[in-house]
């Protein structure tokens, strides 16, 4: 973990070291001041030193403070640089890491949790790092130096600190230890309140439709009150830190007056030393207070740290490890041999169970099956979005793991069930398929995908700016653009995973027609709910519970295969007028 973190300081190590060094100078100057002060006043007033001595020493003190100011300000600058640089490094490496994730890795973390880790958690870490660079060095340094000067000033009197410091520290420590579990409870209540509000926002139509606002208000009142009580319970302890601190400082001052006063009476100490000591009380105990605060902060940001480290330590499940960089996919031939798959290694049941199938290059294959029959999982094995648990998937005659992922996925284009477009223009989105595509290629792809006409109907045509997630397009329009985007890759294999569900049947037919006409050599795999989407395929695979129930053409399956016939009938219901 330390090693992973250390790597993230790259480029900002100098700043990370300079900042504490400058702080060392700042603290050194600040700690000397009361000491010099005491000597100056003593020698000036009682020691009979001349005015020029006082002026010289006074100027020295001002200079020391100026040096402290300059180094303190520079240290702050370097700390900001180091902290923000560290944060940026962490953000970049986590982002890069996620780019290397396979689908299985993404499943394990879930999208919202990855987003929180990349935003809130990294920010917490960044703040903690900045603090560490500044205060973690500063406070112990201040503590030690101030103490040694106090000791130099008067051995006997400095014993007060030896007693006071541990007392304050243990008071704060006990408080922190007691408060910690209460803060954990508090965090849970905060999460609880937030997720109940979130749920409320998502379900607002249901709430309004069933007139349940009162019920929801009552639910919220309970979590809101619980949050209040948990906050009070946790902070009740935390607010003790200030009185504890004051109590110790005041105790020290009285002790210094008493013991110091005795020493002054015995003439073994000057009143100026006594005053200097009071300044050290503040320096020493403030540092202690800061240390305890940093400690608490560290504990609280540890959770964030763990969550980020977890992402960084995740091993991408799929890599180019065994790939041959020179290998390219020559044809769209697909073969599956004894393929089994389960999402979790220790899962009991195979999601895909011993599938053997050979799809010839250029064939059109339909895949049909009920909800949960593993249609999507089946096709995701082909571009190696998931690795098989057992068996081999071959594309173009070679196992998929022999290809570089980029080579494989450029040749096996897949249109996912959940269609996503990114902010930017339509053209920019289409260029994901091929950054160097000509305008003509783009238009051809869009014509086949039946997207050209509606794109041209927008005032800005292909330059139309899409909001985040393509919000100003209808579901069917998005699907068609996604198909065009995949076509621009000029793939050997094209997989459409229920990609025309929001497209009406007539347009759906036109898309399939276009594919047949313009891309006859491409192997086309069409996953669908609608019989009409697959009935013209060369062969149709009927999946049931992760197994192949039957393979055959529409005519072969109709009447002989029970599932296929049932699905067909259910969709035909009422059609006979």
């Amino acid at each position: 973990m330390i090693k992973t973190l250390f790597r993230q300081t790259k480029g900002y190590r100098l700043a990370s070291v300079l900042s504490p060094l400058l702080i060392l100078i700042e603290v050194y100057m600040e700690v000397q001041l009361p000491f010099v002060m005491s000597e100056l006043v003593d020698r000036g007033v009682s020691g009979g030193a001349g005015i020029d001595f006082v002026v010289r020493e006074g100027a020295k003190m001002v200079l020391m403070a100026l040096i402290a100011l300059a180094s303190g300000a520079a240290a702050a600058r370097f700390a900001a640089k180091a902290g923000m640089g560290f944060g940026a490094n962490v953000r970049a490496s986590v982002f890069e890491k996620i780019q290397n994730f396979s689908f299985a890795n993404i499943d394990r973390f879930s999208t919202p949790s990855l987003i929180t880790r990349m935003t809130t958690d990294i920010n917490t870490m960044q703040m903690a790092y900045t603090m560490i660079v500044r205060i973690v060095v500063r406070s112990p340094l201040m503590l030690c130096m101030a103490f040694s000067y106090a000791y130099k000033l008067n051995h006997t009197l400095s014993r007060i600190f030896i007693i006071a410091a541990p007392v304050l520290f243990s008071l704060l420590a006990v408080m922190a230890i007691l408060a910690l579990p209460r803060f954990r409870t508090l965090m849970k209540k905060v999460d609880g309140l937030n997720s109940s509000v979130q749920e409320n926002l998502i379900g607002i139509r249901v709430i309004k439709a069933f007139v349940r606002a009162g019920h929801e208000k009552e639910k919220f009142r309970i979590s809101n009150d619980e949050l209040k009580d948990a906050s009070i319970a946790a902070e009740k302890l935390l607010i003790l830190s200030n009185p504890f601190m004051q109590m110790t400082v005041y105790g020290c001052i009285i002790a210094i007056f008493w013991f110091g006063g005795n020493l002054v009476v015995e003439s073994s100490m000057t009143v100026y030393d006594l005053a200097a000591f009071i300044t050290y009380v503040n320096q020493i105990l403030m540092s202690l207070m800061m240390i305890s605060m940093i400690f608490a902060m560290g504990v609280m940001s540890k959770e964030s740290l763990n969550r980020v480290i977890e992402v960084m330590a995740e091993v991408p499940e799929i890599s180019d490890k065994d790939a041959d960089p020179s290998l390219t996919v020559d044809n769209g031939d697909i073969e599956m041999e004894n393929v089994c798959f389960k999402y979790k290694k220790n899962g009991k049941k195979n999601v895909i169970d011993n599938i053997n199938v050979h799809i010839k290059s250029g064939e059109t294959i339909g895949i049909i099956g009920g909800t949960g029959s593993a249609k999507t999982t089946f096709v995701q094995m082909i571009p190696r979005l998931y690795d098989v648990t057992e068996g081999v998937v071959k594309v173009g005659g070679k196992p998929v793991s022999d290809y570089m992922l980029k080579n494989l996925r450029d040749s096996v284009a897949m249109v996912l069930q959940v269609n996503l477009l990114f902010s930017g223009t339509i053209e920019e989105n289409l260029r994901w398929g091929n950054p160097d595509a000509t305008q003509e290629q783009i238009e051809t792809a869009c014509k086949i995908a039946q997207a050209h006409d509606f794109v041209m109907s927008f005032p800005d045509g292909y330059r139309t700016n899409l909001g985040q997630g393509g919000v100003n397009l209808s579901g069917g329009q998005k699907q068609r653009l996604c198909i065009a985007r995949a076509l621009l890759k000029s793939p050997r294999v094209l997989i459409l995973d229920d990609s025309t569900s929001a497209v009406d049947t007539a347009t759906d037919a036109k898309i399939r027609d276009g594919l047949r006409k313009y891309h006859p050599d491409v192997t086309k795999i069409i996953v669908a709910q609608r019989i009409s989407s697959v009935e013209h395929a060369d062969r149709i695979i009927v999946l049931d519970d992760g197994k192949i129930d039957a393979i055959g053409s529409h005519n072969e399956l109709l009447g002989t295969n029970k599932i296929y016939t049932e699905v067909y009938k259910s969709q035909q219901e009422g059609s006979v007028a």
Partner: protein
Amino acid sequence: MAPAMKHPGKGGPPKGQKPGNVKATFLRLLSYLGRSKAMLTVVFVFVAFSALAGVIGTSFIKTVTDEVLPSIIESGGKDLTPLVKTLVSLGFIYVFGVVSSYGYSRIMLQVAQKTLNIIRKDLFNHMQDLPIKFFDSHTHGELMSRYTSDADTLRECISQSFVQLSSSLISVVGTFVMMVWLSPVLALFVVIMLCLGFVAIKALGSRSAKYFREQQKCVGAVNGYIEEFIEGQRVVKVFCHEEKANADFSVINDSLRKAATNAHTYASVLMPVMGNISYITYAAVTMIGTLMLMMIPKTSFFAISAGSMLAFLTYTRHFFQPITQISQQFNTIIMALAGAERIFEIIDTPAEADDGYVTLVNARKNSDGTLTECEERTGVWAWKHPHGDGTITYTEWQGDVRFHNVTFSYNGKKDVLKNVSLYAMPGQKIAFVGSTGAGKTTITNLINRFYDVDEGKITYDGINIKKIKKAELRRSMAMVLQDTHLFTGTVRDNIAYGKLDATDEEIENAAKLANAHSFISRLPEGYDTMITGDGANLSQGQRQLLAIARAAVADPPVLILDEATSSIDTRTERLIEKGMDKLMEGRTVFVIAHRLSTVSNSDAIMVLEQGEIIERGTHDDLIEQKGKYYQLYTGQFELD
């Protein structure tokens, strides 16, 4: 706990805020705090005690060094009673100070948490009363941030600023008075140094604000990019877009780094600068004070004693601290006010207006056909319609819904529905067919008044729905939506959402009707299985079955099914068909469906295109017409 832990993205003063707004927001926030006026007064008194205890305590340096110790030394150093006496009184002052500190912290905690509790409650309760339009025009993230980051800055401000400001202010004034008393000359010098400090605060503050704004922008860009790309991660993988994504990200990430570095530099430079200005003052005062001690005769007005100078030195150190704190508090307050303003903005959004006065009541049918209102459930319901002249009429509740030339637009520009008229008699099933954006869902939004018609009117049993109380109107119809939302709770709770007082038997019957009973029984804990995260542990189809059961248990005469069976595969749909038929029996039903097989047995099918009904009739009529419906319908079976 520490202010430094804050999300850096939320730092900095808000953009383009009008001063008038700030003032109004501030006053409003005060009025929330004002509810605890008595407690706040006590807090203020305690804060004053605590701050003054510190200030007075420091003056004992002078008392001890100038008076007590010399007198003991003079008397031979044997009798320490004066020192004991002085320290005992100092001890009392300090104990008083510590107790006050605890006192105000404890009371303030209560006040702050209570105030926040009330603000959150007001926010949430008001949000519940806002119209659907509001939720449609704000993203969830936007609204959530009111409860998270905005509430958080507010918490920090309320719990700290009041105490810190008053404590700092009292300390500064108290310390200054003491300094003037000790030595007016030195105090004048400190004032000069203070001006220097103010110059620094001002210079740093204005730059810091500028860089914080810049940082804010970059944080927005980076977070937006992260959200978009992590959500689209699977697409990135499929298109091998990883390298490009990394490259683009590193550009915006780097501009964030630069802006954040500047913002944080200026924010954190303030502490060492102010701290060391106080040390410079300390050094200078030491020198000047010593020179004064050496050169000015004791009898002079400007003379200073050693004790005074030593006490003065300590005051110097204490003088700048609260000033730094005050300047930091201003930042916190400005940020919190921006958050408060966003919260109040929601509280000020007009609630869903409801000028309806017609209500639904239990009724008894008299032998002559008239209706009488009664308390108990009779199974007969009536619309209670009070008139301007004081008379009340009762109309039997039947479920007759009509649209009279309805025109509607979401944005006032483009009409989503144009001059739509239709009628649904009690017990009829009316279906809407059409492509996305044709206006199907809009029709259901209008029936239950999520939105109000622009022109024309909708009547329910002959009564304009604008006259019916919204709650009663919605209670009299059940909706099953395409995106089924389930709530955290058990399966039973979720079904009972349709009728909070439903018995177990009613719940089970509803589940059976929706064909959900069998899968529920197979769940590990049956009806008591917990549903979490919007039903993530159920399939989309199962969730729709639960939503249907939820509508069934409500048992209303009007049912709206908006793509209610879209995620149920056609085989399962056939299985629940009987249940659905039974559910629809005797009710007025509006069905929106993508699949034509779902709607073909309707009493009337409306084909919508661009907000207009272009065809209407029964399935057979429409097939005969050979229009759009015919094309759609036949398209599914004969494509070429």
